[in-house]
């Protein structure tokens, strides 16, 4: 794990050379949610294969571009296309971009995903602001010798998603008349969708939605000192006693339809960031090391 620090610095240097801006926010866009990049005043774009050590996205609906520019007047870098464990990447590879965002100076991470809704009060197309998560991936991106320059050995995860941001996102949703819930995301490795028995199990243990991403990135974000806000778009309902066969085209259609709502929430949350001014952030582990 000790070579990770050098990889991060190499990737960050490559991006900094072409886009010499300190990002405020890093954004990771999930399945069918890449359209937010159209709202960005683009200043630089990188294909993942141009950036050293970045893995390449293999899913059909993920583009695999890093888009840098301004959104709501804030400098942002957005990943259109994300990496999943089921594609065969290690969690360290998947989470490297998050560490690069932090190394470039980002303070906030916005994550989004498409997920299956298990809470019966949810509807397909609703948005859930992630309040907390359960890691059932059977893996953790922090396994290995800890590099203390990157973060602590045993990060606390009592508030991985900043409660203040959850409240702010819900407030924006009410204002914009968007149906949004607050709930628990559970991450499984996939790639198969769950059985009915598994949906019942995941519901019993306290999850509202289920997906195959996000948790590794969030664990690493907390490890390296980023604040996190997360959005799940419910693309199909997974009610075990009335389960319909999953249809990937339909899931992507729902995600595309829900996308304007996600954009509105992200823009609203970032507007709040700007209003609150640029209070100097607490020095993170990366800045200390430099």
């Amino acid at each position, binding site marked *: 794990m000790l070579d990770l620090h050098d990889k991060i610095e190499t990737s960050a240097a490559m991006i900094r050379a072409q886009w010499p801006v300190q990002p405020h926010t890093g954004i990771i866009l999930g399945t069918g949610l890449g359209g937010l990049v159209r709202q960005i005043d683009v200043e630089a774009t990188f294909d993942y294969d141009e950036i050293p050590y970045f893995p390449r996205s293999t899913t059909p609906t993920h583009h695999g571009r890093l888009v840098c520019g301004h959104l709501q007047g804030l400098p942002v870098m957005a990943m259109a296309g994300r990496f999943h464990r089921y594609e065969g990447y290690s969690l360290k590879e998947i989470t490297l971009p998050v560490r690069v965002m932090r190394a470039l100076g980002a303070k906030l991470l916005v994550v989004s995903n498409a997920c299956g809704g298990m809470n019966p009060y949810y509807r397909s197309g609703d948005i859930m602001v992630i309040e907390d*998560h359960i890691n059932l991936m*059977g893996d953790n991106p922090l396994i*290995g010798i*800890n590099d203390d320059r990157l973060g602590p050995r045993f990060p606390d*995860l*009592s508030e991985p998603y900043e409660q203040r941001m959850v409240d702010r996102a819900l407030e924006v949703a009410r204002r914009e008349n968007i149906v949004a819930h607050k709930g628990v995301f559970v991450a499984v490795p996939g790639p198969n969708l769950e059985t009915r028995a598994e949906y019942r199990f995941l519901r019993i*243990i*306290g*999850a509202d939605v289920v997906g195959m991403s996000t948790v590794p990135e969030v664990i690493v974000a907390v490890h390296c000192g980023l604040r996190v806000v997360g959005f799940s778009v419910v693309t199909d309902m997974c009610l075990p006693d009335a389960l319909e066969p999953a249809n990937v085209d339909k899931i992507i259609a729902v995600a595309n339809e829900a996308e304007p709502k996600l954009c509105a929430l992200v823009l609203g949350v970032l507007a709040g960031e700007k209003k609150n001014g640029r209070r100097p952030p607490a020095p993170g582990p990366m800045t200390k090391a430099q």
Partner: protein
Amino acid sequence: MTNRIAANWAISTHVQAAAVAIRDRWAGRPEAALVLGTGLHQLTSLVQAEAVIPYADIPHFPRSTAVGHCGRLVCGRYGERSVIVMDGRCHGYEGYSPSELALPVLSMRALGAQRLILSNASGGLNPKFASGDVVVVADHINLLFLKPAQMGLPPSALAWDRPGYTPMYDAILIEQALDIARCENFAAHRGVYVAMTGPNYETRAEYRFLRRIGGDVVGMSTVPEAVAASACGLRTLALSIVTNVARPDCPEVVLAVDVIRAAERAESHVRKIMAAVVSQPWPDGE
């Protein structure tokens, strides 16, 4: 030869090599093996050391990288008994494979140990527990996602010298430990230990999940060693110190230093149980 058999063969030669290296430095035959968890390093002072062997000197042994873990074997006398103590343990979150974690236990068994006492620091899930309480592990839930083949247990280990079903944690030792706690007047509970990979501490949603499935305490160790011990016929006792009780509805930040301090405060209780379990006459007459 399938990969699995090849892996098993490799680990049994590794176990032999490690055992030989230890025997070269210490001629004793251990009766009991102790594994000291977070904050329990002081317990080595009870041992009249005859040899101290850093893990680095033993072939195939994993190295301890965690905070508060030394990484050495202390071999010697503990009262009347001959013991071997792992001062500092290795964890899955440090990047070790299950077979690497099993190797020290299998090696100590190969040297002759009959009993294993494991200790650890854990987070309390059961609201009836308090910080500093001792939990005598009655059973565990393995959420480490270990694949059995990865344990790499030698085929012979699976039926070493105890045919039939061996409970993971020895019922007699559990009773003995609880007896001692009552006599010495400190709180000890029987409980279920859940093992998670870590290294992050759990989220609130995860605490609720683990409580709901029957966990009393949660930690990041012990299960790989217990599985290996059970496979090779060691009678096992596991003691867990509750360092903090998780209250997911009014969360507190968990810091590694606080965990270590809480474990150190409860050290004397673990010490009493270990001393008694090792030195009292063994009920099975071993």
